[in-house]
């Protein structure tokens, strides 16, 4: 926790000024994440209302650090819960639980889940934006279309493209829990980009053999490329400030595509996908599928250093960040680390000022949106997959996460091995603790949603169970402090149907 939050805190400090400026700039220009999207439906309004009331209680005048009631804690934790069950026996995914807890205001994480409609399979993703939530929001809305288009066999692709010209176009995906829409003008821009992509795919498709790794890479890179193109001035030299501001923010993300026993995980940045595996002796194993793209990943550091001239080796990664600024070493958007020096001076400097150009910016691009693609063939031992942004992984380990979800599945609390909280404890103190712990083991998990269970335990977990005081304190921190203690958290837990996997052909 200390390491993680320190890192985030640093970023926050580094970017604090810039981000405030950017936000200010966005506001003055009349765009920004909220303006980019419209929220539809009463439920979503309710959710937003609820978010204002609950999440940001600290802004309202009240006694500072007053404890929340258990009911208040529950409603904060559960405000963004989502659950979906799939009809049994038809797919390897039984259901999923998802939840988010904001730290930033507004939250910079996004998530997205959708069934592919023209091919078999389910897509689930979590996205962690930085420098604002715009890029993450755009990606969450657009990326699955790009992926599904790449998955379409040539025939289906032609038929799909053709259907777009008809009054009843086909849908590529069926999204769950999607409550936002792009505002009209950006929607048209995005639609045109996508149509162009389809045309390009059609031209290309006949010639290549399908390769899942490449399909996912192509989808990520193409969307990233489109984000860049949309931000740059058109032939008439006009700049669209909405798309340009999206390009100034960035996002990491982790997307799983699950089709029967085949699971592919595409990961850019520092989100993680962890598989919960139950052994034949009923113990839990956490299988971490992804490797974060940050400075802890030596291969990644080596890659970047190698891509730039030797004399940059001390500046390209500095203070554990890309060019001393960006913690994730890969991301979508963030064109301030990708565009050529010419574009930087003609566009970025012009609209946002010099300070937006990173120091030591000599040989761009420094950043890529290319994902790692991991293939895993699901077995009946694989019980669930946890996709989460670093807000979760900063606080608890993959094994703890898997154990927590495992105990949530079995409806039984199993605490982590006991660690004494301080030195020189008296024996009676330890005994007290053990008794309390024993009592805690009797309680059933409070939440029906495993993601909520994870957040609750991540924030409120102690050696002897959930501590309401700790939880309430962490949930009632004022806006300007909260980011020091916890980042945005987004979690999606996908449950697999063991019976289906047992019988599904390879």
């Amino acid at each position, binding site marked *: 926790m200390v390491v993680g939050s320190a890192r985030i805190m640093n970023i926050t400090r580094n970017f604090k000024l810039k981000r405030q400026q950017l936000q200010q700039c966005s506001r003055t220009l009349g765009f920004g994440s909220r303006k980019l999207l419209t929220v539809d439906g009463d439920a979503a309004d309710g959710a937003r209302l609820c978010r204002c009331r609950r999440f940001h209680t600290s802004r309202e005048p009240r006694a500072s650090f007053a404890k929340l009631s258990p009911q208040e804690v529950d409603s904060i934790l559960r405000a963004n819960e989502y659950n979906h069950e799939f009809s049994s026996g038809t797919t390897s995914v039984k259901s999923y639980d998802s939840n988010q807890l904001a730290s930033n205001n507004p939250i910079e994480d996004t998530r997205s889940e959708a069934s592919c409609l023209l091919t078999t399979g389910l897509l689930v993703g979590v996205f962690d934006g930085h420098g604002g939530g715009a890029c993450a929001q755009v990606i969450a809305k657009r990326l699955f279309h790009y992926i599904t288009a790449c998955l379409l066999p040539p025939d289906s692709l032609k*038929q799909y493209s053709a259907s777009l010209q008809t009054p009843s176009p086909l849908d590529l995906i069926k999204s769950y829990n999607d409550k936002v829409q792009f505002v009209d003008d950006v929607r048209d821009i995005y639609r045109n980009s996508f149509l162009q992509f389809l045309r390009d795919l059609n031209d290309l498709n006949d010639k290549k053999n399908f390769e899942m790794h490449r399909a996912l890479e192509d989808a990520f890179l193409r969307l990233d490329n489109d984000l860049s193109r949309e931000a740059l001035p058109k032939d008439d030299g006009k700049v669209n400030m909405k798309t340009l501001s999206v390009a100034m923010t960035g996002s990491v993300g982790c997307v799983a595509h699950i089709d029967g026993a085949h699971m592919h995980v595409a990961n850019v940045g520092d989100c993680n996908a962890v598989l919960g595996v139950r052994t034949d002796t009923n113990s839990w194993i956490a299988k971490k599928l992804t490797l974060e793209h940050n400075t802890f990943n030596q291969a990644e550091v080596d890659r970047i250093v190698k891509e730039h001239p030797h004399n940059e080796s001390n500046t390209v990664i500095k203070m554990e960040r890309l060019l001393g600024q960006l913690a994730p070493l890969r991301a979508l958007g963030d064109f301030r680390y990708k565009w050529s020096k010419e574009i930087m001076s003609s566009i970025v400097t012009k609209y946002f000022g010099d300070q937006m150009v990173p120091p030591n910016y000599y040989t761009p691009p420094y950043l890529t949106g290319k994902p790692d693609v991991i293939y895993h063939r699901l077995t009946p031992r694989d019980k669930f997959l946890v996709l989460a942004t670093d807000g979760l992984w900063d606080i608890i380990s993959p094994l703890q996460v898997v154990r927590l979800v495992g105990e949530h599945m079995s409806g039984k609390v199993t605490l982590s091995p006991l660690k004494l909280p301080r030195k020189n404890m008296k024996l009676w103190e330890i005994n007290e603790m053990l008794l309390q712990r024993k009592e805690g083991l009797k309680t059933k998990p409070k939440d029906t949603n495993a993601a909520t269970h994870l957040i609750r335990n991540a924030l409120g977990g102690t050696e002897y169970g959930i501590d309401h005081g700790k939880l309430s304190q962490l949930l009632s921190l004022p806006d300007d402090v909260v980011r020091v203690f916890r980042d945005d958290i987004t979690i999606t837990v996908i449950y697999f149907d063991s019976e289906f996997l047992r019988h599904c052909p*390879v």
Partner: protein
Amino acid sequence: MFASKLPKCHSIYYLVVKANYSTQHARVVIGGAGVVGNSVAYHLAAKGWTDVLVLEQSTIGSGSSHFGSGTLGLFKPIADRDLIWYSIKLYQELQQKGYDIEMKRCGSLNLAKTKDRLIALKRRIAYNVPTGLQCELLDSKAVKDLHPYLFTEDLEGAVWIPDDAVANPIKICHVLAKLAQEYGVRYKENVIIKNVLTKNQRVYAVRTNEEVIHCDYFINCAGMWARELGLQCNPKVRIPAYPAEHFYALTSNLNLEEGLPCVRDYDSNSYIRQSGSGFLLGWFEQEAKAAFDDHPAIPKNWRHYLQHDWAQFENFWKKSMHRIPMLSSCPQPRLINSPDNFTPDGRWILGEMPSVSNYFVACGMNGNSLQGAGGIGNAMAEWIIEGRPTKDLLPFHVQRYLDVHNGRQYLQQRIKEVVGRHYAILYPLQCEYKYARKVRCSPLFSVLETKGAVFGIKMAYERALYFDTTCGDKKPTMPPGSFYKPQFFNFMKEEHNACREGVGIIDMSSFSKIDIKSDRAEDVVGYLQKLCSNEVNIPIGSIVHTGMLNEHGGYENDCMLVRQEENSFFMVSPTSQQTRVYEWLTKNLSSKSTVALNDVTSMYTVLNVVGPKASELIGELSNSDMLLHSFTYKKVNVGYASDVMVMSFTHTGDPGYCLYIPSEYALHVYEKLMVVGRDYGVRDVGTLTQRFMRIERFIPFWAEELTSFTTPFEAGNGYNVRLDKKDHFIGKEALMKQKRDGILKQLVFFQLNKINIDVDIWPWGGEPIYRNGEFVGTVTSAGYGFSTNKLIALGFLRRPKDSQVKTVTTDYILSKQAKYEIDIAGNKFPATPYIHAPIFATTVSERRKYKPTAIRSKAFM
């Protein structure tokens, strides 16, 4: 051939020549002057081997040859029929030469009282007709016309075999002895053979109660005494044949007119022939009695001890009266107890002993010695003279047995049901024995039994045929047999699904396993190079599939060789080869060789772990990377057990492994596979399912496709022949010649069309194959192709009989003009030929690579 050589006949009565010259040496000594021994002696002499001495403990024909029904029936499986056919022709010649052997070509009626019996008979007609036997299917009216005394109203039909005959067994026995003597064969009666003496595992003399007679060959034709005589040899030889009481009855004179055909009333377990102007009735009762079971040995004065128990025959007598109503008014007939030798599988015992060279046997006539004697005498004479059988006698080969088959108690139990099986409907793959079971069992037997295994035996080894998963706590039994879709077919389908989608576990512990090693690596490699058609000098840890061939290029063994060390190989051969292949290996080992052989069959439990998920399952259990290259092996821990040999091949060609588990770990490994395997879709799989899967992969079987008369090129196994290998191997010249000149037969895979698997009779093997209406071959094995949902069959294809061209080519087989049909019990079904198994898409590379599956949207249509 024999006709021209027959000496002229004067009288059938003759005197045994009391030879004055020494009997202390003979090239061949024959033990027993029954009809078989006399026939062997006669044929040897007729072919020029006249230095033959026949020793008889009593007088010529005084054993069970004395009696017998005298019927000669041709309506049999081909291998049996061809020898009997020779007998009939021989006896006809004798008759024509003027010997009075009371032979009558009266024909036979083979009755079917049930629908299944009729199918069984029709299946026999199907393969007998194109191979030359005249058979006619009659309705009950036509039966009545041929045999007016029969009650025929309850018959489904009958088969008329005009060439069948009757003759007098004892007279033929004497004629053959006389003719043999005229060629110079010596007979010595009232001589007891005490020992057969051997040196270096080779016969050199016979010790009688009088003297020691030196000889090159000994032939045991001692009938009921053959088994005991076999034990009088050092080392002992096994001849598992034991007499059962066998009855027939003679009626008084019933004033019958001449020329009534023989009747086989299978469903009443009886046969009826005319004898003079009365009837002779005999029975193959369902449960017979072992003879002389209260004697320590078969008595010499055996007739003295025979009992006639009318009560035992009450039921049969009733059935006979039902068939021939006039019998009810017949005065009490004379009941004759004529014990005869029966064998554990009801087939003759012929050939050279394993472990003692030049010790031959011909016995086990299973109730009718006359019928086989002529053909067997000829086949044995040729076998001895040529040094190998001249026709395929694999079904009768004495080397099909183990010591366990030769136990007296075992035999007494087993032959009880062998007698009746001669007239039972033997449903293919579904006619297991009831008695003398659970003799050789896998360590997993009891566990598999609780899991619903229905067992069958091979080499007395209990093997799970399929698993009835619905029977709960009860032990399942095999449902009544069928020529149609088996009742247990759905279990097989589930088992197949496990093998194709998850993991199937097959207990194959019955496989013969032999360790072959030497201190000197080059000795063992050189030895195996000579025996094997494939390159065997493979890297340590590799496995090679190879044939072991005879000089004519025919198979003597089909095996996997695993190189464990530089100087040590582990050989896995088919179950039924355990005795025979050891003999073949020994025979080809020079006495000075440093190579040592060790039969380790019982040391290992063998589990085939078959299916696409086998690799992950074994990987999890062994904690190691199980991406073994195919045809390699690794010793690993599985579960908590150590030293499990994991071999990367399966007998069905599917992905998976063979686990060779030291038997004490078998239960542990099996349980681990089952518990952990649950998540991989594990299921027990029986050998019947595996058999079908093999056929579908076009993998030929030992003894069905692969025999001493089949070469690798003919069987489509050319890929494991290395004509270019440095070392010479047995059979190489024959194969090179075949490669040059072409082959006369080729194994072809057929898919049957327009056949309804739920309604029609299935092919099971033995069905004739027609090409544009001409008979070109016979189905050797058949089954159901689970992947294609079609009935499938393998069979050797030749040119039609009177074709000028004899060689078979791909063009000939796959010619567009060729229309194939397979005759199943009288109905011809079109069939498509393949010279490679039709491929179904389950190769590993395809599986590993993910491809999205398009969903057909309604809008698309």
